[in-house]
């Protein structure tokens, strides 16, 4: 177990550092080059940097899982850290790198998808005026995401969390001249920022109680070999003894124990980033960004940060059963809710966005149904995160290729593309089958495991939702597949042709991952809690029904959109009437939010405050000025300039003074 021999284990910091250096090089150096040179260099530099990070990540995964093979308890290593921010004694942020199974897993996912997206982008974004800017931001994002993944403490996580939010903001608003992109980027940032308020409060709360516990817990932590640990560190927070003390705390707030409260707050942040209901509204709009960005940030990596955060804090969540229940219900509801909306959308990227929401809900409730004693859901969630990243990135990149070909986002403008774009068609079909959960593609295994976990946990309702969602997913995914590839060609799709090679390579590579990822023995690699080990085979009692609903969904989609053409679906929509409209309008959530912000916050808070300040507070200041002048003016009228008036005053004053003196002092 000596990690000293391994170069990569000792220098994990290189993985986030390389994209960062590349970001700096691009942002400070290359951006100042002449336009042509800029465009030539930026794509190459950025892509190479991320590819080398990916190579290092694979190396790391290899080394790490060889150091801790299946069956061996996997240690969390912090090979490198330094004191970044010292709040006070025993309350510092040690920025560093944490290497444990899920961080390694995420590093692999992030670098893989990121490097493929970079490669894809060199083709997709070719000739765009903001080409260099695009790669700069993309590198910034990759750095931030890797920094988030390797965070050994919650504050570093928060820092990187905000940074990915900012880079996501920049990339959604990449086409900054397009008003819809601008408002989408604002919306994404503000909604996640609102969620981050909860996260920040949770961090402060954890820091506060952690700090208060620190003195009593520190000696035993030191004894167990955890030196140089700080209250923000995950190693501290997830330490059993700390959690025990934490649970024992009698402080409550609004009827919630502090542990539950802080976990719910943290989950609020996670829900914002992972776009859980009701903070989901930003993700569909985020599709205004370039499609590769959607693939990388809003499908494969950033949006799973919330899931990752919950997984990272899982022992603490598990210690507070209530918080975990919240995770489960929110996840399950989002899975269903988003899947239902996904059936009605026409924009291919929005359908994918809702499917992302739905799949994220899957991962969340998988975490929610597990516990430290039954950690299958934890493994399943991470597994699904892993497989979803590949097939969803593939779907988005495929969608990007389609959009690139027909210059429209609407699935009705596509149609009949199967022949014109064979490679895209094949890869997208693989991904669609994968997300529908068809054996033996990646999605099948992970989804199956989640359903098994839900069933075993006893939450039958959640299991039923999961099964239902699996069917709906198959339906709406095949809806877009059938319409786009086999539907009636429109004038948009007549001149479509296959994407360039730089875009196809990522598609093919991701397709290979999508086929192969399901066979990764995830249970050996990622597990937590007490019943580690025990490789799960396929539980056909669950897989059978799930395959059945998937097949049913596909058949229904075929029935509606291939066999029936457009008329049948229109008839169904008409039959559903108001229900259909409500779903199509995403249950009017955008309108509700607009109402809250525009009408309530702006009109009834901000405007009155601005008015109050200008008129009442400043009015008070002006009033005091006016009073001074007015009293001056009033006194001024007594100054007639006539000696006689002054004389009268003088006499009056003299008399008064005399009288006063005489009465009071004589």
């Amino acid at each position: 177990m000596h990690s000293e021999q391994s170069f990569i284990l000792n220098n994990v910091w290189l993985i986030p550092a390389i994209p960062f250096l590349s970001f700096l090089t691009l942002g400070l150096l290359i951006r100042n080059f002449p336009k042509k040179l800029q465009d030539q260099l930026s794509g190459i530099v950025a892509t190479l940097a991320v590819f080398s990070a990916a190579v290092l990540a694979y190396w790391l995964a290899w080394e790490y899982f060889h150091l801790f093979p299946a069956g061996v308890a996997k240690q969390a290593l912090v090979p490198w850290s330094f004191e970044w921010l010292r709040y006070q004694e025993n309350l510092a942020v040690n920025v560093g790198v944490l290497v444990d199974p899920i961080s390694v897993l995420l590093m692999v996912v992030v670098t893989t998808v990121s490097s493929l997206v970079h490669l894809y982008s060199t083709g997709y974004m070719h000739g765009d005026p903001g080409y260099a800017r695009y790669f700069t931001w993309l590198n910034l994002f990759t750095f931030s995401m890797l920094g988030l993944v390797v965070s050994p403490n919650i504050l570093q996580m928060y820092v990187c969390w905000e940074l990915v939010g900012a880079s996501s903001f920049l990339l959604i608003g990449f086409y900054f001249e397009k008003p819809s992109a601008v408002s989408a980027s604002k919306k994404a940032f503000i909604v996640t920022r609102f969620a981050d308020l909860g996260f920040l409060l949770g961090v402060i709360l954890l820091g506060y109680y952690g700090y208060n516990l620190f003195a009593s817990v520190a000696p035993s932590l030191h004894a167990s070999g955890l030196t140089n640990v700080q209250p923000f560190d995950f190693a501290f927070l997830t330490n059993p003894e700390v959690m025990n003390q934490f649970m024992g705390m009698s402080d409550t707030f609004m009827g919630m124990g502090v542990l539950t409260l802080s976990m719910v707050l943290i989950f609020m942040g996670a829900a914002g980033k992972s776009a859980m209901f009701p903070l989901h509204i930003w993700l569909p709009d985020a599709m205004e960004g370039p499609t590769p960005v959607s693939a990388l940030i809003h499908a494969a990596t950033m949006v799973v940060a919330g899931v990752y955060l919950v997984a990272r804090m899982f022992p603490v969540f598990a210690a507070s059963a209530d918080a975990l229940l919240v995770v489960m219900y929110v996840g399950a509801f989002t899975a269903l809710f988003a899947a239902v909306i996904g059936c009605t959308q026409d924009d291919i990227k929005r359908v994918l966005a809702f499917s992302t929401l739905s799949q994220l809900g899957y991962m969340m409730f998988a975490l929610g149904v597990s516990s430290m004693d039954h950690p299958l859901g934890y493994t399943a969630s991470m597994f699904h995160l892993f497989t979803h990243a590949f097939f969803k990135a593939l779907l988005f990149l495929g969608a990007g290729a389609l959009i690139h070909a027909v210059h429209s986002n609407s699935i009705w403008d596509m149609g009949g593309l199967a022949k014109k774009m064979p490679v895209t068609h094949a890869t997208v079909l693989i991904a669609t089958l994968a997300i529908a959960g068809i054996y033996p593609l990646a999605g099948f295994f992970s989804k199956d495991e989640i359903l098994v976990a839900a069933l075993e946990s006893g939450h039958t309702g959640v299991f039923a939702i999961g099964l239902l969602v699996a069917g709906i997913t198959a339906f709406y995914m095949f809806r877009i597949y059938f319409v786009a590839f086999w539907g009636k060609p429109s004038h948009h799709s007549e001149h479509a042709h296959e994407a360039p090679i730089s875009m196809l390579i990522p598609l093919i590579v991701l397709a290979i991952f999508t086929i192969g990822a399901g066979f990764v023995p995830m249970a050996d690699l990622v597990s937590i809690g007490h019943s580690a080990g025990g490789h799960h085979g396929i539980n056909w009692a669950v897989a059978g029904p799930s395959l059945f609903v998937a097949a049913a969904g596909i058949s229904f989609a075929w029935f509606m959109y291939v066999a029936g053409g457009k008329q049948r679906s229109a008839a169904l929509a008409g039959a559903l009437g108001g229900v259909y409209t409500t779903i199509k309008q995403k249950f009017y959530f955008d309108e509700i939010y607009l109402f809250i912000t525009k009408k309530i916050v702006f009109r009834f808070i901000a405007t009155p405050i601005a008015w109050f300040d200008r008129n009442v507070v400043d009015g008070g200041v002006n009033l005091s000025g006016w009073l001074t002048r007015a009293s001056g003016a009033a006194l001024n009228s007594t100054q007639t300039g006539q000696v006689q008036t002054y004389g009268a005053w003088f006499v009056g004053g003299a008399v008064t003074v005399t009288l006063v003196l005489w009465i009071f002092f004589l």
Partner: protein
Amino acid sequence: MGLVSWLIILPFLTAMAVLMVPAKNWKAIRWISLTGTGMHLMLTAFTTMKFWALASQDIPAMKTATMTKLYFVERVTWFQTLGIDYFVGLDGISMSMVILTSIIIFAGTLASWNVEERTKEFFVLLLTLVTGVFGVFMSFDLFLFFMFYEVAVLPMYLLIGIWGTGPKEYAAMKLTLMLMVGSALILVGMLAVYHASGLHTFDLIRLATVNYPASLQTWVFPMFFLGFGVLGALYPFHTWSPDGHASAPTAVSMLHAGVLMKLGGYGALRIAVYLLPEGAKEWGLFFMGLTTINIVYGSFGAIMQKDLKYFTAYSSVSHCGFVLFGVAAMNLMGFKGAIIQMFSHGIMTGLFFALIGMVYGRTHTRIIPDMGGLAKVMPWLAVCFYVGGMASLGLPGFAGFVAESHVFMGGFFGNNFMNPVAMKTLTIIATVSIVVTAVYVLRGLATVFQGPITNHHFHELTDATLTEKLSTGLLVATLAVVGFMPWYFIDLIEASIFPFVNRLQASGTMVAFH
């Protein structure tokens, strides 16, 4: 003459040099000013390095100290009979503020490269003002402090009244009068302390050795705090700031919002809290409440503003609220956060005003809805604006986050003499501002820079010139350096903050508002 005196006198010498030049050589004048401020910046850098080496070593030793340790002290008796000394020196707080001022005045000189109306008088006044500011930050004699304070406040009237825009006379008058009311309160407090101490000295360090009676502290502390609070835009005495900032010329807005407003927080900490710990304990929660209003109210007020300068001024009200909030939280993290926030807000708001000046110089409008899509034609300015905006909404990686997280932690962690529930509640209310800030920053900036270009005249506009790039680049780099490497900054100031906290702990055990 030592290092500190040179730091104070250099801007004044520059002003004198400018006076020597005939007014028509305005190009020579700005070069002299730039050289002077550039030399000052270098001197500051040199001092900072020397100081950092000394102060960061003293951190362990200062952990239990109750008296501020000064470095590079110079002391000359001035009026013996009244006990007034020329007593200057540096501690971590002063040092950070000197760095801030030095950077801002250098950037401000670059930003006023195009002042062509009465260039000579402008720079003379500007440099005089800065002399006053440096004097305030480095003097440890109350009388000297007050004298420099007035030197810093008064030129502002002329600078706004002559070179300003809009209702400049009104704004200048309002600003000066309100600050004068503040300084009147400070003067009364100073004299009260002077007489109560019975030491016949204005020496801040010696005055701090006296335990003032609680009855005195009870009424003198709020006088000091309100007096400095007026300058630090404490609610409801902040209204000079939107008008003043909106009317002032670019460099003056920068200096004023960036540096002069910091005198408020600096004085509140340095004098009010340091001399009167008992009063601080008693009034802490009250002022924490007021500053919470500042924070939330300022950010909501900024949402609806149409003028970029008003927009920034309201965000300043909110951000300066963080400074005083940190001070009012009365613990290590609060004080530290207050100082970092002073620094970060100074740089940030200096950046904002510089950029607004540059944008205004091109578009001739400051009205947000009149602009649009400017990022296309002025990418550099847009990027800098976004950096400033991101820093102001507390994005990690910039100094604002370091400051705000300190302040929030400080407020939440509380101390052992103020009601913990109230402090936590106020802190939670204050954190709401991070969302509101995001709303107004993004709304404002998106309207100005993003979207299609709304006015066809804008197509002909140009991006930043070299001097402008230098000026804004310096400020952006400072924000990023402090944000990415906060430990240097914390090492710089931490040793000097312990005494403030320890004094609070050491003073009597009076508990208020429980």
